[in-house]
């Protein structure tokens, strides 16, 4: 149990640093802002109680907000991702196979499952994030394009990170 907590704190620090130091500085004609820190929420154990999931999402979003100077923006989006996570897990299915310490990683759940799960939550997160940032529907299609491109890149990034971790564990 302690190992699980430690592992998650380590992952949190790593992903926040990756987001703030590297990814926040990436921008490609204003359309590409990958937000990979959401992976932290995705990888929390299945058995995380609901209230804890929400609190963790809140803190994660707030941390990113503090570093990007956008109070409330990432908090709201990440919170929604945390809130919908249980539903999405139910939707994507294969409930009976997992146990308490297990978390929904690529390695545990397989590529197809993980990709569907990641795509749904990342898309949701990016949609809320971008529309809250623009705060109007006036530039609807431009915002939509931004959401789609960023979502694709975030999902690719996440799969890439997961593959790196999987191969590292296999080598041991």
């Amino acid at each position, binding site marked *: 149990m302690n190992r699980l907590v430690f592992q998650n704190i380590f992952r949190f620090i790593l992903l926040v640093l990756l987001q*703030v*130091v590297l990814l*926040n*500085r*990436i*921008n*490609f*004609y*204003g*359309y*590409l*802002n990958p937000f990979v820190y959401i992976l932290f929420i995705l990888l929390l154990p299945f058995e995380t109680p*609901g*209230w804890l999931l*929400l*609190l963790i999402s*809140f803190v994660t*979003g*707030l941390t990113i*907000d*503090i*570093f990007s*100077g*956008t*109070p*409330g*923006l990432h*908090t*709201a989006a990440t*919170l*929604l991702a945390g*809130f919908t996570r249980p539903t999405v897990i139910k939707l994507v299915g294969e409930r009976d196979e997992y146990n308490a310490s297990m978390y929904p990683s690529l390695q545990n759940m397989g590529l197809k499952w993980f990709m569907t799960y990641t795509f749904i939550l990342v898309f949701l997160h990016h949609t809320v994030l*971008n529309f*809250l*940032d*623009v*705060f109007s529907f006036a*530039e609807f299609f*431009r915002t939509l394009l931004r959401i789609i491109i960023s979502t694709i890149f975030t999902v690719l990034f996440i799969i890439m990170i997961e593959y790196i971790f999987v191969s590292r564990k296999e080598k041991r």
Partner: protein
Amino acid sequence: MRNILAFIVRFHFLLLFIVLEVVALAMLVNSTYFQQSAVLNTGNRITGKFYTSASNITGYLKLRRTNELLSIENAILRQGSDMSFLKSDSNTFWKNDTLYRQQYQYIVARVIHNSVGKRNNYIMLDKGKRFGVEKDMAVITPNGVAGTVVSVSENFAWVMSVLNKHTRISARIRKNDQMGTVVWNGVNPSVGTLNDIPAHVKLSRGDTIVTSGFSNIFPAGLMMGTINDFRVEQGEHFYIIPFTFSVDFNSLDYVYIVRNLMKDEQEELKKTTEAQANE
């Protein structure tokens, strides 16, 4: 009572979500214009230190370009100094202090955090209250306008970049003094839009856009950019004018924060006049 408790226990997940989301949205709404929230000001200190060390490293990579800009500016300033003028008659030149009163002071600062890819971009500078930086001061570069200070902490300042949804800078076209408003539509970090120029005005590509100085924030005549294109939408009476920014927002490094020494006086006058009009 028990029913209420049962209700809370049963729906605690949903209720907690709503409460937290409301907190998040409240933060977002209250900070949209001026990022003054307590979270940010404490956050400023932490992130400021962090970004300072990051920018200390990246600063080296830009040295050549920065030096170039500084020397160009030095040359321009030198041209304006007494030394560069040949005395055309035997009289001595005087700086007449009663005719020229200093209105603007400049504080040099470094950009330690900057973005161009978002819809609302902000810049962080390494000078704060300690150096006399205040809210609503202008931030300019040797090439033109960069933004407006929206919040300051002891050592750092948050600047709303021109690349922001809330940017509205009063500007004019230099050749005919027509006044309009500069906004940014969020697509291209090198292209802004000038609105509110009446459709009867004659324009041509390459015309220069400068600040009007009507806002009490920006000095008049600062370069903003050059006109790319212009069109009038059907049924409208004003041009939409996309123009190229003279500033490359992606490579901001050293900037000047502008203090308007007469701003208080100007605003005081405006306030008293408005108060009188309301009476």
